[in-house]
């Protein structure tokens, strides 16, 4: 493909995302306004009367008609202003900057753990279909996805922290006495290395183990399943048969021919699993007091914190749109036959 053609295709793909993003903005706005409960009353506090509630409603701009509220929301958005979260009292953009990395770090470490286990399991199962190994693999990953994450999380905390004392207390990303490392990426594992603070790195890593395990167990199944299915399909295809009949080394066939071709659907699945895991994060973060966006979204939703709910859902959605774009681009790298914009 020509470079210009490629760029054009990328541009078209980006353009496709525009209505989606607009749709997200509209749905989020409508959804937050449909939340029952009156934030003005909630925030007026325990001993408020009609007068103070009305004062607060005006302060929050909630006394204006909906289209006006939507318009001012849009124009703020264009200026990069997501508003101020009333429940934490911080600008939503600031919250995003500090919380998103926490969630991403957790999700990515969980996915890494998951891929490291699930892909070999999938390949193993695919090379020995219908043997006890295949069944065992299937059993393990299915058991993983069948556990409610909050249940797994609580169980792990109970055993490894409360009973055995091996894990650090489930109190967020670092031990209480460590300061977060100088912020570069917001990922403590990376920032601590950059700053050369190895003790902080160890603390951050130790705090990641249980939540990442909890989330990782949950994402084993789709990855392993897709790996197995894709491998089976590829292994049954003509070119593998040809390669086999040509007497190529079995290991080489498996890894360089079959696996490479099976990667494509696996990567697609990874994208979906990522979004899925970000959602599942909500529950894991609640159990481990993880200062990420999931736990924040729950809190914001419960108090009808419009700005926060809108900002976070928007951020998550944009993230996902970007991710899909990246996956589509990766496609072209792995498989030149795939054209963008189809």
């Amino acid at each position, binding site marked *: 493909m020509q470079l210009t053609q490629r760029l054009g295709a990328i541009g078209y793909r980006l353009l496709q995302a525009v209505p989606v993003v607009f749709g997200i903005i509209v749905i989020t706005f409508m959804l937050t306004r449909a*939340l*029952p*409960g*009156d*934030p003005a*009353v*909630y*925030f*007026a*506090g*325990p*001993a*408020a*009367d*009609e*007068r*103070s509630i009305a*004062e*607060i409603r005006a*302060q*929050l701009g909630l006394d204006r008609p909906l289209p006006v509220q939507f318009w001012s929301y849009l124009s703020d958005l264009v200026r990069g202003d997501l508003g101020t979260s*009333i*429940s*934490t*009292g*911080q600008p939503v953009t600031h*919250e995003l900057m*500090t919380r998103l990395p926490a969630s991403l770090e957790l999700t990515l470490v969980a996915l890494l753990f998951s891929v490291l286990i699930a892909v070999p399991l999938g390949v193993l199962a695919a090379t020995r279909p219908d043997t006890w190994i295949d069944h065992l693999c299937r059993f393990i990953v299915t058991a993983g996805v069948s556990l409610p994450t909050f249940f797994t999380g*609580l169980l792990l*905390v*109970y055993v490894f*922290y*409360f009973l055995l*004392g*091996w894990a*650090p*207390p*489930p*109190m*967020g990303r670092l*031990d*209480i*006495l*460590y*300061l977060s490392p100088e912020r570069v990426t917001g990922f403590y594992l990376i920032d601590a290395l950059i700053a050369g*603070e190895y*003790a*902080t790195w*160890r*603390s951050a890593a130790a705090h990641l183990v249980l939540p990442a395990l909890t989330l990782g167990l949950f994402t084993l199944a789709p990855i392993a399943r897709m790996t197995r299915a894709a491998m089976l399909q590829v292994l049954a295809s003509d070119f593998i048969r040809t390669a086999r009949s040509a007497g190529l080394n079995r290991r080489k066939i498996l890894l360089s021919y079959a696996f490479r071709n099976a990667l494509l659907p696996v990567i697609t699945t990874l994208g979906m699993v990522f979004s899925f895991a970000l959602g599942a994060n909500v529950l894991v973060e*609640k*159990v*481990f*007091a993880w*200062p990420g966006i999931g*736990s*924040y979204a729950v*809190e914001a939703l*419960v*108090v009808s914190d419009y700005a926060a709910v809108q900002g976070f859902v928007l951020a998550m959605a944009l993230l996902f749109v970007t991710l899909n774009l990246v996956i589509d681009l990766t496609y072209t790298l792995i498989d030149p036959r795939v054209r963008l914009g189809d």
Partner: protein
Amino acid sequence: MQRRDFLKNASAAAVGASILPFLKSTPALAQSGDTIVVVTGTTINSLDLHRTGTNRPSYQVAVNCYDRLISFGVKTLPDGSLSYDYDTLVPELAERWEIAADGLSVTFYLKPDAAFWDGTPVTATDVKWSLDRAVSVGGFPTVQMRAGGMESPDQFEIIDDKTIRVHYLQPSKLLLPDLAVPVPFIINSKVALAHATDDDPWAMEYLHRNPAGSGAFKVERWQPSEQLVYIRNDDWQGGPLPAVRRVIIREIPSQSTRRALIERGSVQFSHDIPAKDAREMLANPRVKVIGNPIENCLHVLCPNLNFAPFQDKRVRQAVAYAIPYAEIYRNAAYERGAPMWGGEHLEPQSVVWPQPFPYTTDYDKARELLAQTDYKDGFEVPLSFDLGTAEWGEPTALLIQEGLARIGIRANIERIPGANWRTIALVEKNLPLHLENFGGWLNTPCYYFFWAYVSDRLFNSSNYSDPEMDQLVAETLHIPMDDPDYEPKLKRMIAKAFDEVPRIPLYQPNLEVAMIPQIEGYQFWFHRMPDVRTLKL
């Protein structure tokens, strides 16, 4: 930079300790008596109590970082625990105060050495600016000030640099105590005004993130929904210098995690724990549990008078006789707190408040009462509670549901998320039958009645409206409690509450806290916030 280095060194020491399996870094450091880690389940969302949208847990910043003119004294309760003392006012920023002979003003003389964190002296100008702010910004602070009879900046008069006078609208026993609640805290007005704008004359935006006070602790670090770190103000003039240098308030949403943390000694203090945990941890020698009945607070069942069947007093009484009080006390309150049923007399014998109501679990009597009404075949009613109080609300509601079923009232349980609760229950007041937990800050019976029994008041979620009650409350609210009129009128109010039961008390709840046994000096406060100024290790 120095702070950073300090923490780095501390953590380096802690890493060494963490090689031993059961010695985590935090307790190791805390044993030096320098730092206390407190866990709570709630988020501090602002450092400024006056700001719109500041939630209840944030009030602790006003307590620990700011001073008021006066505060409450301390008393030792019969069980040996410490509590604030509503009947004693003590100096905080004011050195002394005098009530004018006509009873219509009180003059405060500021401590000569009182100074803000930046070293500038506390002056009458700061005090006036702060009190003006509390009565002007609207929302909760203004309502609370009004409850004490302070409504307008005109009431605060600067006499000289160190003297300020507060004028009463009418003589009231509530004004002085209301100056000792967290709301009228004193702000460094020079700092605040430097950050005020035309749109924001009260510097709400600045003080929200940057406290400017004279209090015992400064805020060293604040990460909303993670932690708040207090560091001691070594020049504090408001009271005895705190024993601990640093207090870390850590927010842990999961209740079971908080319990695990305190039981394992990973943290030193757990604030506001569930009754069940309190009862069970009494058996753990590594944890000290202190529970105090929350003054002027009741967990009640409210039959709403807007709902036709509950307009009949006998139906409300029938409900009051059909509640399994003992089961609720056992399974929802875990026998912590004080029972509020089974009073022996139909007429109150004293003005002690709260006191047990003269109802017991008596299904026959309940059926008999219901049979006299139009609703002898029972009826269906939703029974609601705030999801935020599910810990006691849910078992309580389930047990009430069972009790009511015995007399033919079919209650369907509805859980209402926190955001909707205030709107539906307190403002619109249209929940037919619901659980409520109001507690008054100012500890006088008339104050409770003022909020909960007077027509249209916020916490009168039963829509009870009775001219005689309104009249009696208006007459008793401001007069001194030793006024000869006070006792008979109050008895009449309590008698009406007994007889007409628009609110059916279940029990008086406890405020429970857990700490490692080495911690001393914990005091119960009506505001139910951790006052970390008195904690010692």
